Every structure is written in structure tokens, then in C-alpha cells.
């Protein structure tokens, strides 16, 4: 699979917090943490668990820059 997204950060799942519909997944990217909200269904489909090697994929049009 090749993706158009310009940001494809390799990391490890460090936390999964499931709600009723949406789950919060924390991914450690070289010491910094990215938080992602995905559906519970996606967590099940990908069989996500703590320690999994994953990619945090962010479209460049979604990145806000602060200074």
C-alpha cells in the first residue's frame, strides 16, 4: 500500500481507551505522543493492542502550525 499522505510516522501503541463509539489510541513516536481518535470498529478491525507497531498517518492539510 502506498499513501498520498505526506506524514506517515512510525510508532508504538502505548494506550487504547475505548468509549462507546470512539476509541482514543496513543502512539509513541520517538518519545513524543500522538493521540488519535478512531472508531471502536477500527480498533477491532486492525486488532490493535498495546505494543503494536503502527503508523500515525496525517494529511498535510490537517496539520496546524503554532509558533
Amino acid at each position: 500500500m502506498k499513501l498520498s499522505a505526506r506524514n506517515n510516522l512510525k510508532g508504538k501503541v502505548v494506550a487504547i481507551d475505548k468509549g462507546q463509539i470512539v476509541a482514543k489510541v496513543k502512539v509513541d513516536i520517538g518519545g513524543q505522543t500522538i493521540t488519535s481518535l478512531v472508531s471502536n470498529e477500527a480498533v477491532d478491525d486492525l486488532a490493535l493492542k498495546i505494543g503494536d507497531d503502527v503508523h500515525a498517518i496525517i494529511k498535510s492539510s490537517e496539520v496546524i502550525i503554532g509558533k
Partner: protein
Amino acid sequence: MTDSKVEAILALRGGSRSPVGRDRIALLEAVDNHGSITRAAQAVGLSYKAAWDALNAVNNLLPRPAVAAQTGGRNGGGAVVTEDGKALITAFHLLEERLSRAAALFSEGNTPIDPIILLRSLGMKTSARNAFRCTVTEIRQGRVNAEVILHLNDTVTLAATVTEESLRDLGIAVGQSVTALVKASFVMLATGKACPPVSARNRISGTVAHREDGPVSCEITLDIGGGKVLTSMVTRDGADELGLQPGTSAWALFKASHVILAVE
């Protein structure tokens, strides 16, 4: 095919009383501008009596008067357009503009005269490039969020995450028709045979129909079958890396939370 403009004429009528159309609204506007019925009548070319009758017809349309006469005073009494009257003027122009927009479709030879299309052109237009008419097939409710599953066509199902409050406000129920809106910049593209193993709930396969390059961005239109297309905005770098050209197979990926639902 004719090039004569098609115009819609709007008239509002309360009960069996005489209708209020553009001329009477123009008179109401003249009263607002001149502050007097006499001068307003002159401005629109009516006698005072005709103007008085016309304004009564306008007043009869609303629960509260559109024009309030101020008796006495230096000029034998002025007249003011009330807040309700001003709201009527605005509403009338908005309705007339929308009706004309819908009626213009009659003169466009390439557009089929379809009542649904005509009605839709009365409503709000959005900048979202992707608007899909879908049927709600399932609703999964949480405390804050709800996931709405939508049937687009026989091959494509969409998922939308909206708040419970939106679900209630819009009165979304199974079986209902809704429009799913997705901004082109929310759509990511992927290549490869298998469905990409990503969390995005919406993964739709298609074929690149068109590619439009800008200096930085690239607009890709995917044919997703059943006469539907999906537009995506990605960087040129991204499109080049994937080798996207007309005819290339690609997946459109977007999060359920990036789908906006609209009802009519």
C-alpha cells in the same frame, strides 16, 4: 434551446385576499426609504389611494403590521416599516432569488427538468466537493457520538460519526435519505490491490478519472462506479509518488468523523 431568461414570479397571499408580489414589496421598500406613504407612492408611480390599499394588503399578510403610520406631524404623518416589515422584505428577496435560480434550470438545455433537482437548487449550496445522496441503514449510538452507516450504492457503504445532539436535531433515523458531505482535502488516496489496513472507516476503491495539477496541490477525481465520482485534494508530491494518472486504480480513504450529514 432558447436563450430567453426564465424568471420565477413570487406572490404571497393570506387567505383569499389580494396577493403581495414584487410591486408591493417594492412599495414597502420605498416607504422604508422615504418614511412616508405619499412620497413612496410617488416613487413607485402609484396614487396615494392605490399605495394605501397595497400596504393594507401587505399588513394583512403578517400577524403584526409591516407598516406603522405615524399620524399627525409636519407632513401630515409619516410611515415606518416595522421590524416585521423589514424581515418580510428580506425573506421575499431571498425566496425570489432562490426561485429564480431554480427556474433558470428550465432554460438550461443540458439539465433535465427534474423536480428533485429543482427543489435541491432552492436549498443551501455548500463548497464541499463531495455530496452523496445516501440512505441511513444503521445507527450506533454512544453517549456523545453516534456512528451512522449509509448506503450510497450497491458497492459503497459510508460511515459518518456525528454527535448525538446532531442526530437528534436532524431527526436522523434508519431508512431516511441524507446527504453526506466530504471536503476534497479530507480524502486521502492509496494504491495497492488490497483494501488498505488503516483505521479510516471509509475506504472506497475507484479509478482515476481526472487529474488537475496546481503548483503544490493536485485534484484527483475518482470514478467509484455507479455513475458516482469522488474528488480528492492531495499534494502533487503525494500524487506523483503514487503515480496517479487517469486509469490508475486507487483507494479513497477518509475518516467517519470527516463526514458531515445534511438533511432537507
